[in-house]
C-alpha cells in the first residue's frame, strides 16, 4: 500500500500533465451596464458554453480578487450566484498577481491528485467607487505603514521611481515608453473584449497629463471592471472530457522581493520576475526564450513595466528593452510579439482578474482563436504569461504549450 502511494505520488509530481481545459472572459471596461453578479457570470458562462467542461466536473473553485468588493469575503457570495454550491471555494490574494496566484494554487492542487478540475475565477469591479478612492486602494497594495500613509506614494508613483532611474541610467526617453502604449492600443483596437478598442498616436500619449511624473496618463493601465475564468485540469480529466484543444502548463515560476522602496537595491529591474522566469525556463527546458516562445503577455500596468519585463524575461539585455519597442520587435511578425490583446494598458486591468485574463489570452493565441489582426504566428506552440503583484513583491511566470 505504502509503495503504491509512493509511486502514485511520483506519477502526480513528475508524469501527469496539467492543462487548461476551458476559458472564459467578460468584456472589460467601465461596466456600469451590469451588476457585479452578472459580471462574474459573464466569464463563467463562457467556460461552460465551450462544451467541454460542465459544472458537475468542477471539484473546487479558487476565487481571486483584491479589495474592491464591498463584501469582506466575496468568494462565497459570488459562488452562490453562479450556482456552484456545494463545491468548496476560497479566495487567493497577491495584489495584481492574484489571478496567477489562484492558478498556481489550482495547478498544485491538481498536481497533488486532490482535484481533477479546478475553476479559477478572477474578478474586480473597480468603478464601484470614485477615482480618488480607487487610487487610495491601489496605493495600499504597496508598503502602507512606511510609504503610503505619510508620504502619499501611489501605484503609478512606485513604478515612476523605476522609470526615473531607468531613463537616467540608460538614456531612455518618455517617447520610448509611449511607444509601448501605441503598440498596446493598436492591438486593443483589434480585441472585441478590450476596454479601449481604439488606436492612439505617439502625440496622444506624449501630450497626456502627468499622473506620477514622469508617468503620464497614457502610460497607465486604466481602472477596469471585468472577470475572467479558466479551468485547470489533470491530463486524465482532459482526456475523459474529450477536450480537443488542451493547452498544457509546462511550468509556473514564482518568487518575491521586498514591497518597500527602502529595501530595494535596484530601480531598473524586478528581481523576483527574473527569478520566476529563470525557474520557469529551466523547468520547461527553454534556453533561448525569444527563439522558443511564439507569444507573450506581460504585466504592463505602466509602460515602463513592459520594458522591464522584456529585460527580466530575457527578451532583451539590461538597458536594451527600449530597443525592442523602438524597432517594433514586439508586434506580430517581430522577434517576440507581446500583449496582442492590448495588454493591461488597452484591454484593461481589473487587478484581481488580470492573471486569469492573461491565461485566457495565451490559450486563445495557442488555439489560434484570437481575432484577425492580433493572432500571433504559432510555430513552436509555446506561450508565456508574466504577472506582477505590487512592484514585484509577487511575481509569476508561466510557460504554456499547445
Amino acid at each position, binding site marked *: 500500500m505504502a509503495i503504491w502511494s509512493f509511486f502514485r505520488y511520483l506519477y502526480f509530481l513528475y508524469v501527469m500533465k496539467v492543462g487548461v481545459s476551458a476559458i472564459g472572459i467578460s468584456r472589460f471596461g467601465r461596466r456600469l451596464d451590469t451588476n457585479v453578479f452578472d459580471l462574474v457570470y459573464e466569464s463563467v458562462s463562457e467556460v461552460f458554453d465551450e462544451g467541454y467542461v460542465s459544472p458537475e466536473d468542477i471539484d473546487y473553485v479558487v476565487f481571486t480578487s483584491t479589495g474592491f468588493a464591498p463584501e469582506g469575503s466575496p468568494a462565497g457570495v459570488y459562488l452562490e450566484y453562479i450556482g456552484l454550491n456545494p463545491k468548496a471555494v476560497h479566495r487567493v490574494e497577491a495584489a495584481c498577481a492574484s489571478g496567477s496566484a489562484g492558478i498556481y494554487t489550482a495547478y498544485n492542487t491538481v498536481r497533488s491528485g486532490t482535484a481533477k478540475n479546478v475553476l479559477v475565477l478572477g474578478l474586480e469591479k473597480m468603478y464601484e467607487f470614485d477615482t*480618488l478612492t480607487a487610487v*487610495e486602494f491601489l496605493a495600499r497594495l504597496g508598503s502602507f505603514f*512606511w510609504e503610503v500613509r*505619510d*508620504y*502619499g506614494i501611489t501605484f503609478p508613483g512606485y513604478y515612476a521611481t523605476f522609470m526615473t532611474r531607468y531613463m*537616467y541610467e540608460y538614456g531612455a526617453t518618455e517617447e520610448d515608453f509611449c511607444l509601448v502604449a501605441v503598440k498596446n492600443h493598436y492591438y486593443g483596437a483589434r480585441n472585441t473584449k478590450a476596454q479601449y478598442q481604439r488606436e492612439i498616436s505617439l502625440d496622444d500619449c506624449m501630450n497626456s497629463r502627468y499622473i506620477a511624473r514622469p508617468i503620464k496618463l497614457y502610460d497607465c493601465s486604466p481602472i477596469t471592471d471585468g472577470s475572467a475564468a479558466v479551468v485547470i485540469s489533470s491530463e486524465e480529466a482532459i482526456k475523459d472530457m474529450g477536450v480537443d484543444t488542451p493547452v498544457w502548463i509546462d511550468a509556473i515560476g514564482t518568487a518575491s522581493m521586498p514591497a518597500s522602496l527602502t529595501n530595494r537595491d535596484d530601480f531598473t529591474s524586478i528581481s523576483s520576475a527574473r527569478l520566476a522566469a529563470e525557474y520557469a525556463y529551466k523547468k520547461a527546458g527553454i534556453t533561448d526564450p525569444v527563439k522558443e516562445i511564439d507569444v507573450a503577455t506581460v504585466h504592463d500596468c505602466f509602460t515602463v513595466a513592459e520594458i522591464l519585463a522584456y529585460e527580466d524575461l530575457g527578451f532583451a539585455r539590461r538597458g536594451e528593452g527600449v530597443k525592442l519597442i523602438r524597432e517594433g520587435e514586439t508586434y506580430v511578425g517581430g522577434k517576440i510579439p507581446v500583449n496582442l490583446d492590448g495588454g493591461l494598458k488597452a484591454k484593461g486591468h481589473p487587478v484581481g482578474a488580470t492573471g486569469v485574463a492573461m491565461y485566457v489570452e495565451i490559450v486563445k493565441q495557442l488555439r489560434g482563436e484570437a481575432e484577425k489582426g492580433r493572432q500571433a504566428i504559432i510555430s513552436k506552440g509555446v506561450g508565456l504569461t508574466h504577472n506582477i503583484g505590487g512592484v514585484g513583491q509577487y511575481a509569476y511566470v508561466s510557460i504554456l504549450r499547445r
Partner: protein
Amino acid sequence: MGIIGYDEKSGKPILMDPREFKVRYRSSLGSLEKYYKELEVGRVVAVKCKECGSKYFPPRSYCPSCGSQDLEFFVLSSRGRLITYTEINVKPQTHSKYGDYIVGVVEVDGVKVVGHVKAKFKDLRPDQNVEIKVERREGDEYPRIVFKPLD
C-alpha cells in the same frame, strides 16, 4: 430623490448607498515608539544590529540577517544621495488636500529612506546630494522626512 441614481456619462442605473463607510487606522507602535518620538524632535533614526552590524530602515526589532534581537537605534546623517524620485500629480484620497508633491528615495549611512523632496521636478536628477531634515507641512502637525538638494 429615488434610490436609483443614473450615471452622468452612460445613463446606466446605479444604486447609491446613502451611508458612507469611514476608516481611520489606529496602528499600535510597540518597539516603533522610539522612531516616532525621535521624529517629533526632528531626528531620523535607523537601527543597527549589535551582533553582525547590519543596518535597517525602517527600524525593526530583530535582525533578519543573523537572527539577533539586540539592535540599537542610531541617528542618520543629514546628508545623503537621491537615488530616484517621482512627482505625485494624482493623489490618493487621503492626500488629495495637498498640492503636487515629490516622493524620493535617498541613500544615507548604508540604508535607504523615503521622504518628500522640496524642489522643482525639473531641477532634480538622480545621484545628486541632498540634505535630510524633518519638517511639518503647512497646516499639518505631522512631522515628515524631507530632502533638499545641495547641488
